[in-house]
């Protein structure tokens, strides 16, 4: 759970997918059909002759450098920069503060409850239960609201609603303790450890 811009991810896939699909299909048709081959040759020779002419027209003095080459390099640089920005903005949205109560009249100072406190409180309580193998608590900021994410791996075969009730109870206890309701996402997972830690208590 993070604040990755998923629309950007999808747009990247859409644009590259479209380009590859069109290019691949065009090449298949050009390699197999005469009329598309003519079209392919025609378009490419137009493009190449246009590039040659533009390169000559924009040549700077007697050098090999042309305005066209500079423009292409600039475009490539923009592509790389956009890509770096997209990569740098992946993830994020993690928060270290669960509750922040600013100093107001009648209260001497601001109150801040950090993620570590909430995390410790919840994971300690969960680890005392035998049906819970592992739990992890993190906080993230979603649209300006702090959300607690409790990830629980119960012993294999444990009924998820029971685990959910336990975890919701702990989150509510924390809310009662801090006096502030924090919305929570509880995700119940079956990890590799759940598979190893499976046991079936039987009677008889």
């Amino acid at each position, binding site marked *: 759970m993070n604040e990755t811009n998923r629309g950007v991810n999808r747009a990247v896939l859409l644009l590259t997918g479209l380009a590859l699909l069109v290019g691949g299909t065009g090449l298949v048709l*050009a390699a197999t059909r005469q009329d598309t081959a003519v079209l392919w040759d025609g378009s490419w020779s137009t493009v190449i002759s246009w590039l040659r002419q533009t390169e000559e027209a924009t040549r700077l003095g007697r050098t090999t450098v042309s305005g066209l080459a500079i423009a292409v390099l600039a475009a490539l640089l923009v592509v790389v920069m956009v890509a770096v920005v997209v*990569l740098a903005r992946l993830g994020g949205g993690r928060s270290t503060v669960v509750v922040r109560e600013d100093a107001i009249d009648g209260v001497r100072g601001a109150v801040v409850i950090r993620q570590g406190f909430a995390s410790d409180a919840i994971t300690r309580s969960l680890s005392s239960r035998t049906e819970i193998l592992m739990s992890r608590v993190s906080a993230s900021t979603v649209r300006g609201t702090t959300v607690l994410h409790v990830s629980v791996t*119960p012993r*294999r*075969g444990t*009924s998820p609603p029971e685990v959910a009730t336990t975890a919701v109870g702990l989150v509510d206890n924390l809310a009662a303790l801090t006096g502030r309701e924090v*919305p929570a996402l509880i995700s119940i997972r079956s990890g590799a450890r759940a598979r190893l830690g499976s046991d079936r208590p039987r009677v008889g």
Partner: protein
Amino acid sequence: MAHPVLARVVRRETHSPRTAAAVAVIVLVVAAAIGSGLEIVRYLLGAAPLLARPAAVLTWLAALPAAEPRAAVAAAAVAVAVVGAVLLWLAAAPGRRSVHVLGSAAHAVVVDDAAIAAAVAERVGREIDLPQGAVVVGIGHRTADVTVRPDLDQVVDEEHVREVAAGELAGYGPARMRVRVRVLRRGSSR
């Protein structure tokens, strides 16, 4: 779900962000852009190309449909088109993760399907008293497939298995799942 932000959280938790595919594509695009840029700069400086001169690449592309062997070109082109189609599919498909949302009051609860399957198998195995490993459960978005393989001397009623599995799933809230039960005989293939 009491808090409106949880709707967004749940949607993001139940759908794939497509980050892995997007990062792979971006890395390849950046590599291609840097490669092209280097070749252009080397061409401008009059240095020998690393792989090919920019103009040579363009003429090679233009002549590609007529290049030999024809079959290899066509196959490579089909491969490119298929990769494109896969990327388009990744971009457009909902990318639902194999998880279910439990109907809970104040907070959002998301359970992964393997955990549900294990719980259903456990409940069925315990209530019908089957040996461990005799119940296999597969959970889909709207279906639960329960396969039971009892011992030879044990009679298992399909309807009873269905009731037990549905009973376990009924505790999960609003998501209705259709339960399908198969009872296999030992030594038979189905």
